[in-house]
C-alpha cells in the first residue's frame, strides 16, 4: 500500500486489482489448506500495519480487505518492518507447521530503518519462507531475500499473470527436512448433528441458534463450523477430508495407470486372494467403476480404447471422471480407504 500501489498500469489500479486477487487467494488458500492460519498486514508510509491476526477463518479476513476501509495508499514500503512483524508473529508457532510470508510488492524500493538483509537473516533463522510477487519489475533485494529464505519470486506481466502467480502460492511447498520433526497433535473429529429445524440449539461462542452443528468429542460443546478450535477446551476440531486436503501435498494419492490386459489379470489374482470385505461393497471386476459403479468397458477387448484406469495399490478399476475427482478434489482413493490393499 505504498505510493506505487496507486499506479494505474493494472486496471482499475494496482491496489484494487491486488485486493480483489488477494480475496480470491485467501479463499483458495483455505480451500487448499483448511488447517492453516493466515494473517494480513499492509505496508504503508514506511510502516507496517497488522490488519488481521493469524486465524483460520477466510471470511473474516476477506471482509477486512476492502478498499474503502483500508484508506488510500501513501508513502514508501518498508520490507524490513514487514519481515520483522512476520518474525514476531510466526516465531511462536509450533515447529511442525510451515511458516510462510507472501509479500505482494508493488513498490520498487524499500525504505528501511536498518539493513533489510539482517531481517532476512532473522527470517531464515526462524525458518520463515519469504515469497514475493512483484507487480512492477524485478527488485534486487526481493530476489535476494527470496533466494536466501528459499521462497520464490515472480513479477507479474498483467492481471491474469498476477492471479496465476498469487494462486500458485496457495498450495504449500514440499516439506523440507528441517521441518520434518514429527510431533503428535491432539485433534478432535466431531460429529455433525442433524439439520432438522427441531434440533436447533445455541451454538458456539456467540450462542447463535443454529440447527446443523458439530459437537466437540471432548467437552461436548457445540461449534458451528469446521475446522476451528473448540471455544471451551481449545481442542482442534476438524474432519477427515480437511486433513486429507491439507496433507494431500505431503501424501498424494498415487496416480492411476491405464488398465491393460496384463494388469487386469494380475489385479484379478490379487483381488481373489483378498477376503471379501463386506457384502455391500462390491470388488470391481473390471467392468464396473469402483467409484461410481457405472459400467466401464472391458480392458483389452479388441478394437476398443482402454478407457479404464486402475489404482496401483488397491487394484480397483476407476473411470476417468472418478480419477479426476479422486486426484483433484477428494485426495483419498476410495479403494485404498476401504482397506483394499
Amino acid at each position: 500500500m505504498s505510493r506505487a500501489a496507486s499506479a494505474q498500469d493494472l486496471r482499475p489500479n494496482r491496489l484494487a486489482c491486488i485486493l480483489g486477487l488477494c480475496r480470491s487467494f485467501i479463499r483458495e488458500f483455505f480451500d487448499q489448506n483448511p488447517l492453516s492460519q493466515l494473517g494480513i498486514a499492509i505496508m504503508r508510509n514506511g510502516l507496517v500495519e497488522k490488519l488481521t491476526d493469524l486465524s483460520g477463518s477466510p471470511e473474516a479476513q476477506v471482509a477486512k480487505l476492502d478498499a474503502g476501509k483500508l484508506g488510500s495508499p501513501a508513502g514508501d514500503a518498508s520490507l524490513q518492518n514487514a519481515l520483522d512483524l512476520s518474525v514476531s508473529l510466526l516465531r511462536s508457532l509450533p515447529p511442525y507447521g510451515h511458516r510462510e510470508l507472501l509479500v505482494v510488492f508493488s513498490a520498487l524500493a524499500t525504505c528501511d530503518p536498518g539493513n533489510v538483509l539482517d531481517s532476512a537473516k532473522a527470517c531464515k533463522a526462524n525458518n520463515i519462507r519469504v515469497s514475493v510477487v512483484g507487480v512492477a519489475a524485478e527488485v534486487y533485494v526481493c530476489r535476494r531475500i527470496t533466494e536466501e529464505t528459499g521462497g520464490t519470486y515472480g513479477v507479474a506481466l498483467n492481471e491474469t499473470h498476477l492471479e496465476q502467480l498469487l494462486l500458485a502460492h496457495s498450495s504449500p511447498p514440499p516439506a523440507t527436512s528441517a521441518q520434518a520433526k514429527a510431533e503428535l497433535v491432539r485433534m478432535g473429529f466431531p460429529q455433525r448433528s442433524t439439520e432438522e429445524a427441531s434440533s436447533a440449539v445455541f451454538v458456539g461462542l456467540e450462542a447463535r441458534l443454529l440447527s446443523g452443528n458439530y459437537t466437540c468429542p471432548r467437552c461436548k460443546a457445540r461449534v458451528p463450523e469446521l475446522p476451528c478450535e473448540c471455544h471451551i477446551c481449545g481442542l482442534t476440531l476438524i474432519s477427515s477430508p480437511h486433513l486429507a486436503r491439507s496433507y494431500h501435498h505431503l501424501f498424494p494419492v498415487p496416480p492411476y495407470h491405464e488398465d491393460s490386459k496384463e494388469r487386469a489379470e494380475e489385479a484379478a489374482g490379487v483381488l481373489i486372494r483378498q477376503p471379501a470385505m463386506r457384502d455391500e461393497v462390491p470388488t470391481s471386476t473390471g467392468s464396473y467403476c469402483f467409484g461410481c459403479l457405472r459400467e466401464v468397458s472391458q480392458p483389452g477387448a479388441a478394437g476398443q480404447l482402454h478407457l479404464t484406469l486402475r489404482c496401483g495399490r488397491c487394484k480397483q478399476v476407476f473411470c476417468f471422471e472418478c480419477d479426476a475427482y479422486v486426484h483433484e478434489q477428494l485426495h483419498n482413493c476410495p479403494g485404498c480407504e476401504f482397506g483394499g490393499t
Partner: protein
Amino acid sequence: MRFNLEGLTVYFPYEYIYPEQYRYMLELKRALDARGHCLLEMPTGTGKTITLLSLITSYQLAHKEVGKLIYCTRTVPEMEKVLAELAELIEYRAKYLGRGPGSNEILALGLSSRKNLCIHPRVAEEGSRESVDAGCRRLTASWVRERAAERVSRGTTEGGEEGGSSGGAVGEIELCDYFEGHERAGVEALLPPGVYTLSDLRDFGRKHGWCPYFLARHMMAFANVVVYNYQYMIDPKVSQMVSRELEKECVVVFDEAHNIDNVCIEALSVNLRKQTLEAAGRNLGKLSNSIRRAREADAARLQAEYNRLVAGLIAQGALRGGEDWLANPALPADVVQETVPGNIRRAEHFMGFLHRFLAFLRDKMASPVVTSQSPQVFLHELQERVQVDAKTLKFCYDRLSSLLKTLEITNTDEFTPIQLVADFATLVGTYAKGFAIIMEPYDERLPQVPDPVLQLSCLDASLAMKPVFSKFQSVVITSGTLSPIDLYPRILNFNPVAIQSFQMTLTRDCLCPVVVTRGADQMPMSTKFEMRGDPGVMRNYGRLLVDLSAVVPDGIVAFFVSYRYMDQIIAKWHDMGILQEIMQHKLIFIETQDVVETTLALDNFRRACDSGRGAVFLSVARGKVAEGIDFDRHYGRAVVMFGVPYQYTLSRILRARLEYLRETFQIKEADYLAFDAVRQAAQCVGRVIRSKADYGMMIFADKRYQRHDKRDKLPQWITRHLKEAHMNLSTDMMVHVAREFLRAMAQPYDRGAVGKSLLSEAALAALDAAGGLDGAGAAGA
C-alpha cells in the same frame, strides 16, 4: 573443452563456447597466420578476454616461433582480472598437458609501477607514484650502492683499527634489502612457471627477499604472457626502458582500446603551467648549486662526463649503472644518434641554455592572447629571440638526464618540472609535423582568472602507434565499442589484415535501447548549444528522470555531457523541485571531479542498490565513472545519456587536431566529432551490460540521435536491438516501453539455452567438419 580450429588445437576452459567467441577466434587466428594487425569489436559480456587468452596461448603452444603475448590494459584492476582468467585457463590446460618441467608451462606476470609493487616497508608507504620511484632510487641508485659498499669495506678495515666506532656511519647509507637480495641472486632470481598477479609477485618477493619490481622486470624476458598498462607500450619514455627488448614476433593486444588514439596523443603531449615553469626555475638554481659544488669537490667527474659527451657515448649502456629513468620522450626511430652539440656539452653552458629557454617560455606565457603555432614558427621565433636552435633542443632531454646522473641526484620527483620542460624542448625540436603549440592565458570558462597554460599538443595519434605497429608482427586492437570500425585504421594510420565487428547472440532481448526525442509536452529535447539553457528542455530532462525513477527498480545511471552542464542542470532541478521528486523514489549520488568524493559516492550508491532503497547516479561522459566503472546487474537497470557528448568544440587543441585530421587523413571535422561523441555515448550506455544474463534499458535522450549520422555510428550490437518502434519517443511513451521491458525481463529465464547461443564440443567438431561456422559468410566477404 578442447577443439580443433582450422588445424589449431584450442584449449578453452569452459564446457560451452558462444558462437561469437568462436568467430572471434577464427578471425584472430587468421590474422595471426597472416602475421598482420587486426581490429576486432565484440560486445562486452561475451567473454572477450578469455577468448583472446585462450586462442593466443594455444597458438603459442602450436607455433613455437610466436613470441610473448603482451596484453595491454588500461587499469590495474583490469590487469588483475586478465591474470585471474589466465590462471583459470592454465589450470584447465594442465589437465591436458600435465605439469612439471617440459610440459609447456606458462609464465605469466603483471607489471606495474613501483607504487604497486614495492614491498619496502617505508618506501611503499609513499603517496604518489613519483615519490615511490624517487624513494626507490634513493635506496637503489648505483652510486648510492657503490658508496655504501665502499663504506662497508672501509668500515671493516677501519673497524679493525678503531674498534667499532664507524658502525653507525655504515648504517647511515640505507639500502633496500629486497633490491640487494635480488641483486645477490643475480640471474638465479627466477620465478617458477605460473601466473603472477601483482599481489602474488609481492608475496613471492617477500618470501624470497627479492624486490618484486625488479624481479618482474627481469622475468619479462622469460615470460610467455606479460600484462601491463598501455603506457608501457605506447609512451616512448616508458616503453624505451620496459619494452625495448621485446622480440618482433610478440603478439600485442590492446584491450578496451576504443580510446587508444587519445592515449597515444597524451603520451606525446606536454602541458606547462606557470607553476611548472617557476618550479623548473628553482630546479635550475639547485642544479647550478650542485654543479658548483661538484666542480669544487670532484671536478674530474664533470670532466669525465664532458669527455663522454664529446665521444658521443650518450647511449644508455655507457652511462654508469644504466639507470632506467629519464628516457627520451621522442619515439625511438626519431631519436638522433649523434653526439650532443658542443654548445651544451659543458654543464654550465647547458645551464645557461636552459635558463634562456625557460625565460623564453615565461615570456610566451605572459602574453594575454590565445596563440596557436606550429612547431616551425615556434622554433623560428626561438631562434630569433634567444638564439636557440632546433638541433640543440633535440638533445635537451638526453643532456639533462646525463647531467642528473652525473650529479648523482636521487630525489627525482623534485626535478619533475625541469624534466617536463626538457620533454617539451626535445619534442618541439624533433617533430615539425603533427604538433601544435597552444598558449591559453586563461581557462575559457573563467576568463577573469589568469591561468596560463602552454601546451605542446600532439595532433597525430598515429605517431605514437607507428613504432608499435612496425616493431611487432601482430597487434590486436579490441574493444566492446570500436564503431565505426573503419575510422580507426585511418586515424591510427595502419593496415589491418582483419577488421571485424561481432554481434552478441542472445537468448532473449536483454538490451533495450530507446531514443527519446521529446518531453511529455512534445517539445524537442537536445543539449545543442542553443537549446541546452532553455528551462523547458531542462525541465523535460528532469521529468524524464523522475518518471524513469518511478518505474525502474534499483540503480539508474545518468550521464551528462559535461561537468559544467551537470552543475547547471542540477541547480535548476533543485529550484524546480525535481530533485525532491526523484528523492521520493531513489537516492541521488553525484560524480565530482574529486576522486575520493566520487569513490565514496559510488560506494554508497552500491549500498543503496543492495539494500533495495534504489539510487540514481549522476555522472559525466568522458569522466572517470564513464570509463572505468561497471554498473552491471541491479546497479544499472537503466542508463540515460542526456545529450550527445561532443567535445568542447571551441578548445584550441581540438580545433588544431581537427584541422590536422582534415589535411592529413581527409577526415571531415563533423565526421570526427560525431564519431568521438557517439563512441563516448556508446561507452557510457555500455556500462550497464556486462554479461548475457544481465539486462538494462539504454536511453538516448536527444533529438539528434534520431539522425542517421549519429545512429549508424553506434556499435552494431546496440543498433540491432534498436527497434523502429523505439525511436523518436516522447517521455511518456518511453516510460511505457520501460515498464513492459522490465516486466518481461523479470520473468524467469532459462540460462542453459544450449544450441542457440552456446556450442558444445561436439557441435564444434561438427562445425569444423562442415567447414566452419561462417565459412560461407567469410568466403562471401
